[in-house]
């Protein structure tokens, strides 16, 4: 079931929350706080959440977005949940590599591969 949101499109696939970003340049400082709050509310409301962030609409992000993802990841871990990222384009993935955050996050080429990688709760 789709959940209306100004920045996120959320769907469910076999109990996994699949999130896409509504705008191409959303992951910049102006909207990142709101996006972080929306995602955190989702995580807080669902202990053991299995969350997939699909980056297919994203062609720009800032270090603030990376900070948001780190904070989100930490909370997911605390909640005994799982977080995966997918469909990150070459330029964005380079940012993850330069900051070595490709080691922190589970990143998949496609959403299908990421979905298959979730373990059952």
């Amino acid at each position, binding site marked *: 079931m789709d959940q209306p949101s100004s920045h996120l499109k959320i769907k469910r696939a076999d109990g996994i929350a699949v999130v896409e970003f509504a705008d191409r340049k959303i992951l*910049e*400082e*102006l909207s990142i706080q709101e996006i972080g709050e929306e995602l955190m509310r989702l995580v807080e409301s669902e202990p053991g959440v299995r969350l997939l962030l699909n980056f297919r609409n994203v*062609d*720009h992000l*800032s*270090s*603030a977005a*990376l*900070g*948001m993802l*780190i*904070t989100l990841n*930490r909370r997911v871990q605390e909640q005994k949940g799982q977080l995966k990222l997918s469909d990150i384009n070459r*330029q964005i993935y380079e*940012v993850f590599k*330069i*900051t*070595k*955050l490709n*080691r*922190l996050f589970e990143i998949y080429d496609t959403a299908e591969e990421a979905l298959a990688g979730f373990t059952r709760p």
Partner: protein
Amino acid sequence: MRPPPDFGVRDEELTHLVVPSDLRSAKEPEEQIVSEMISHGYDRDTIFALRLALEEAITNAIKHGNRNDPTKHIHLRYHVNPDRVVVMVRDEGRGFRRKSLPDPTADENLQRAGGRGLMLMRSYMTKVRYNRVGNEVWLLKTRKEPDK
């Protein structure tokens, strides 16, 4: 606010803008610069790099330099030509000591939410130069540069 001599641009070539110290106001000059890069035929990777570094510099100026004070301003100077882009960002703060910054890629810092802006600027720009005080940064991005 004069350009570093090794940046290959003369002082009189630079456009000077002053914007209020908030992200929305800084968007317009950013788009102006990107628009000029596009008209000069810069490739997507170079535009991506400049946009990323510029946004980090502006965010630092707003958050750290001007301490989120909306009454302060950011000074921008820039020049775009066929072989280089030069941008200056200056805040109205007291500056900072760059040597005191921790390495964000160290294992113990990887999970810190902040502290990556400067590293990203240096990784994506051809040159990054701060004034002594630390409230003014110059970014240079040349059209072609060796692989890092």
